[in-house]
Each structure stands twice: as structure tokens, then as C-alpha cells.
């Protein structure tokens, strides 16, 4: 089977973001989605540090230390963008004004619970950032993650063993193996990578999966 690489995952997520959407891309892997948004589709990217209308990375030497994204990487501003302060920025998030956020995850449960901020390791220094706000606030929470941990364990789980970011918040999961909706009946696979069959995916996932390709709504 052909696993999706990071770029393919980003491109797959990007397909589902419609014209006119307001979107927050989480730090790390989700940030990559920006590079694959279809040309000609106007999509407005939000960053929690107070900006709407993030544009492409600046050219080398054109970075501005005052214009960064939530990952503290230099960005540019699109024509039509706007700046605002942190309380207003999180008002947008918490107040359900973002159409989508795309987040990474350690685990997603069949009920849509998300664990993405803390491994639970007692010696780890905790850091949460805006993850909890995004998870409860965005109209649609999309998760983008490897299907399996490095140890081969499924990140789709019956119940999260890692500390929760938010309960019942995830709408759809994009992995290197499949696209899976979180439904009232649990996980529902809507796409798989070429060469993968449901039985294999089911075995790797270790949690009940339905399959309903017609459910794809993008």
C-alpha cells in the first residue's frame, strides 16, 4: 500500500477547505496545508497571535520579526488581511467564527475526543498554547496525524489514554492511511490510500471502523 507522505496528507486536507473559509492551521504538520490550498480559491487563514489573511512565507531576507504565525515562523499578510489583539483573536476562536481548524493529535477517540497537548508523562513540562481553545471553538475540527505511533499503536482509540484537549470536538481525521469521519456511531472511513483494504485498516486501527465512501462531503 502507498502511505500518504506529509505533503500528500496536507494536499488531501486542503481539498476539503472551500472558498471563503476562515481557517486556523495548527503548529507543525497542519501548517503545511497552506502550501496546498488550490490556487484561485480564496481562503482566509487565521493565526491566534492576532492576524487574519496570512500569506505565503516571505522570501529569504524579507522576514519581519513582527509578522509571525502561531508557530513563530515568519509569514506575510495577504491584501485584505487585518491585525487585532489576543483577546479579540481568541474571541473569534471561542465564539465559533472559524469555519475550520486543523490540528495535530496524539489520539482521537471514537467519540471525537482529542488528545494533543500532553503525553501524560509525569516529568514532561506541560504546554497547551491555543489548542484547547481551537478544539472547542472552531465549527469543524480537522485532525491531521500519522495513523500509527512509531511503536505501531493506533492513534484512533476507543478512549484516549493521554490527557484530553477537549471532549467530542473532532469532526474528521486525516491520516497517512485514510480519511475518517467521527460520527454519532463512531469512526467511519470515507477514503483509504491506494492498495489498502478495510480489513487491514481495521486490524491496524484496533477500534471499530465503519466504511461509507459516499459519506464524503467535501
Amino acid at each position: 500500500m502507498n502511505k500518504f507522505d506529509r505533503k500528500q496528507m496536507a494536499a488531501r486536507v486542503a481539498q476539503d477547505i472551500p472558498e471563503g473559509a476562515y481557517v486556523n492551521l495548527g503548529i507543525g504538520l497542519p501548517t503545511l496545508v497552506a502550501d496546498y490550498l488550490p490556487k484561485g480559491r480564496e481562503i482566509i487563514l487565521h493565526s491566534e497571535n492576532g492576524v487574519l489573511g496570512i500569506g505565503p512565507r516571505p522570501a529569504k531576507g524579507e522576514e519581519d520579526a513582527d509578522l509571525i504565525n502561531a508557530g513563530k515562523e515568519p509569514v506575510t499578510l495577504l491584501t485584505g488581511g487585518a491585525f487585532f489583539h489576543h483577546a479579540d483573536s481568541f474571541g473569534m476562536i471561542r465564539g465559533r467564527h472559524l469555519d475550520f481548524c486543523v490540528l495535530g493529535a496524539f489520539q482521537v477517540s471514537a467519540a471525537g475526543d482529542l488528545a494533543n497537548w500532553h503525553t501524560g508523562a509525569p516529568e514532561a513540562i506541560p504546554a497547551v498554547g491555543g489548542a484547547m481553545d481551537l478544539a472547542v471553538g472552531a465549527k469543524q475540527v480537522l485532525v491531521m496525524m500519522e495513523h500509527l505511533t512509531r511503536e505501531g499503536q493506533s492513534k484512533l482509540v476507543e478512549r484516549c489514554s493521554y490527557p484530553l484537549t477537549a471532549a467530542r470536538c473532532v469532526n474528521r481525521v486525516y491520516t497517512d492511511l485514510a480519511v475518517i469521519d467521527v460520527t454519532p456511531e463512531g469512526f467511519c472511513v470515507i477514503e483509504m490510500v491506494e492498495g489498502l483494504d478495510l480489513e487491514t485498516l481495521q486490524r491496524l486501527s484496533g477500534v471499530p471502523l465503519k466504511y461509507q465512501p459516499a459519506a464524503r462531503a467535501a
Partner: protein
Amino acid sequence: MINKIFATAQTALADVPDGATVMISGFGGAGMPSELIDGLIAQGATDLTVVNNNAGNGDSGLAALIAAGRVRKILCSFPRQVDSWHFDRLYRAGKLELELVPQGTLAERIRAAGAGVGGFFTPTAFGTRLAEGKETRNIDGRDYVLEYPIHADYALIKADRADRWGNLVYRKTARNFAPVMAAAARCTVVQVRETVELGALDPESIVTPGIFVQRVVRLTPMRKAA
């Protein structure tokens, strides 16, 4: 291409249903979207709940909507004015329900709706009849009243300029309630004096980013707002 600009008030307001909760910006006449209100009167929606600081002045704008019998209930801080005769008449006749809210609490309840805050403790009105029956709490030695957000189906607001993404700037004290109302409504309709090219508004000076705006109509005031 994103284009939130509508050609007419008629198209921008076509789907307002009977029974809707409608926020209307303005403090007296300043910032009141009088031409949008005229459009709403023409559109015909009735049984409305209106949120505004006042309850109409003179015979135009919100006063005209009230006079037309379209308003079932109004949430405001200052209904009684020398020229609020339409409100006065219907209120005294028992045909108009009033929820009186202190002005700062009104602004903050609207802001809370837009910011996803489920409730907040304010010191305003503690120990007064406007807090009767409300939950109170002493926090760090100060007394507070628990207040809840005010959400709306539509916000009808007035701004000075807008671009096709719905970014807005206002003019002087006509700004007043518009920015918080824009965020508190499911569908925000803005009347502006001028629409401008994307990029014409300074990103540092945009007061209402387009994320809070669904529809923009350029409307030339036909008369001095009351």
C-alpha cells in the same frame, strides 16, 4: 472570489424570518443603519426581538420599525427619550415587551455572545431592581451579578467603508455598538457609505475584520438620521 457585497438592501435582507432577533447598531442616530431598517420594514418581517441602545427616536429608523408594529420585544438601556413616542405608545398599550439592561451590561452581553463567553459576573446593577432574581456572588470583596450573552440571528449595522471581504472601518462615535454586534449575530448585514478595493483599508486600522461580516450594502443616506 470572496465577495460579500450585495447590490441592494432588499437582497441583503431577503431571508430575515418572522420572529428573528435583530441587533441594530447606533446610539441615537449616530451609527444607526436607517436605510437597512427601511429595507427591513419593506421586507415585512415581524414579531421581531430588537437589541439596540435606545427604542427609537422621532419617526424614522428604529422608531419607524416600531411604529410599523414589527417589534415584539426590545432589549435596550434607554428607551424613554423626548422623541420616543412610538415606543412609549406601544409599551404603554402593552404591545411591546421591554428588557431594560444597563448600557455597559448590554454592550458586554453582546460582546460575550461574539466571544463565546457563556456568562460573566459584572458589578453593575448589584443591589438594584435590575438585578432582582439574578444570581449574585461576592468575588474578592466586590459584589457581582451574573449576566448571560445576547445572541442574534441578524445584526444590522452601519459602517463608513468596507471591502469585499467585509473588513470595516467606522466614523467617529458612529462606531459605538457595531463592532460587538457584528460578532454576536449569525448573519451581519452592514450598510456603508463607500465600498473600497481590497487592500485600501489599513490592516492596522481595520476595526471589524471581515470574519464577523456576511453582507455589505452601499447605501447613500436619503435623509439626515434622526
